[in-house]
């Protein structure tokens, strides 16, 4: 069943310089691209850098581009290729390379930090949260995200335009905003910010994020477009604007989150419902 396949793997360092290096390597039945990279490490290139973790499509570490298509290496079966095909593996293009197939994905962590966190409702104690399944269905779809950053990498807004990086949060984090906006208990209004702070307007809904998402999340249809519509509600819809002015309803429903809690205050206010000493006898 096994055969010998031709591979080309990009090898280079953090200067960005490098080249495709050819390899001939054995392939066994049922293997995925990551297995082959591991075989290369064990037999031909001990220091070939590759990032991975779960090898089960759950952690989103092993993102790379296989034959030019952004993919998880651990979920790309060798049986999807012809035996005589040369398979090219390159690092994600949008992020700075660290070495070989590993890129520096810190851009994403920076963007994650810029999205204001979940703002819990006031006066609802832990254990008293009540949410209907129909209300959590939508945000739950987005929470399937394994943060593989394939969408961030593929989105042409930053892939082809490095200069847009400061303005644009990327599909993953625009989706995070949508997730919080649809969270049944989140109390912060996020709509204007999505447009003004996180660059929702840069997205031209060309759907590459959806195409590459290994979790099959309908990012564009279910997060980005609904978010654009929600922004229209607030920013471009005169009727809604008028209604808001007259009834002030939305304001009440969407008051700002209670914001920062002081870390200097001890006790339940600190977020953990148990103050320091009620955590139980210490050292009994």
């Amino acid at each position, binding site marked *: 069943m096994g055969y010998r396949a031709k591979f080309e793997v990009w090898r280079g360092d*953090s200067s960005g310089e490098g080249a495709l290096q050819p390899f001939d390597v054995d392939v066994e039945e049922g293997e995925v691209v990551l297995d082959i990279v591991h075989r290369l490490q064990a037999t031909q290139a001990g220091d070939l850098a590759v990032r991975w973790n779960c090898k089960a499509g759950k952690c989103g570490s092993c993102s790379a581009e296989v034959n030019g298509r952004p993919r998880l290496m651990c979920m790309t079966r060798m049986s999807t290729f012809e035996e005589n095909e040369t398979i090219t593996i390159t690092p994600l293009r949008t992020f700075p390379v660290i070495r070989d197939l590993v890129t520096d994905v810190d851009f994403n962590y920076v963007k994650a930090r810029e999205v204001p966190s979940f703002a819990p409702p006031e006066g609802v104690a832990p254990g008293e949260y009540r949410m209907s399944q129909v209300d959590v269905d939508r945000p739950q779809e987005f929470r399937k995200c394994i943060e593989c950053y394939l969408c961030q990498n593929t989105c042409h807004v930053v892939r082809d335009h490095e*200069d847009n990086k400061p303005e644009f949060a990327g599909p993953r984090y625009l989706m995070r905003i949508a997730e919080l906006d649809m969270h049944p208990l989140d109390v912060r209004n996020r709509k204007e910010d999505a447009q003004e702070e996180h660059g929702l307007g840069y997205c*031209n809904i060309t759907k590459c994020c959806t195409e590459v998402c290994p979790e099959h999340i309908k990012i564009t249809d279910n997060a980005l477009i609904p978010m654009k519509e929600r922004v229209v509600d607030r920013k471009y819809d005169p009727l809604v604007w008028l209604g808001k002015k007259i009834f002030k309803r939305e304001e009440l429903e969407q008051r700002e989150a209670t914001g920062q809690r002081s870390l200097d205050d001890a006790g339940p206010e600190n977020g953990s419902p148990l103050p320091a000493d009620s955590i139980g006898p210490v050292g009994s």
Partner: protein
Amino acid sequence: MTTTAHDPGAPSAENPGRADIRARTLRRDRWWLAPLVNALGLATFVVYATIRSFWGSAYYVPEYHYLSPFYSPCFSASCVPGSSHFGTFLPEFPAWLPLALLSLPFLLGFRVTCYYYRKSYYRAFWASPPACAVAEPHGKYTGETRFPLILQNAHRYFFYMAFLISLINTYDMVVAFQSDAPDGSGRFGIGLGNVILLVNVIGLWLYTLSCHSCRHITGGRLKHFSKHPVRYRIWTGVSALNTRHMLFAWITIGTLILTDLYIMLVASGTISDLRIVN
């Protein structure tokens, strides 16, 4: 979106630290096929629709009351007698003005700002991007953040209008089941034209109702579905249609052309309508 010469693969201060891979894409599949087909399809429709809108004749079959969707509603005094189902409160138009002046801009606007067509033509005509993981040829990109593309946000107003026009198209379709009897009185009748009109109207409704703005307005904007069970059900239905929005977009391109073409051929006497009942 300005177009300047730009080599996206080149290592530069613009792309600090990225792997130096010069090729525009390493994809080896036929990624150019989809934008090509899209471009051809859209171009066909645009050319056909433009020609026919300005044609100014062969859009109405008086004996069977078939009215082409490109001429509905027809409000001008220039309209062929009988084709104006809602009166002719507009004066005569000069020949270079399309007769459906009141609906065509909205229909055009609806489709131009449609979330699906946007994807399609941004990719096919603007190459922004031509396909996923294929570099686009533009040096600068601001997306829909400024004029004119910020106007895409007006999609929902076009949707409201398109909804009304779909009602009119439905009325036109129903009226067409009345054909003229030889004695000049009206009677019930069905021809192939009716079937085509019906299919077209169904297609138009599916396309209109599966619109993303419609999905938002009917229920998507709610935070708590559980408090609005009826709207939730409607939203669920619209969402199901919405997953096929692209399909309906292409189907209606086909049915619109087909309907108009058929009516044109019948109205001009090139072929005669295939009658099924009366």
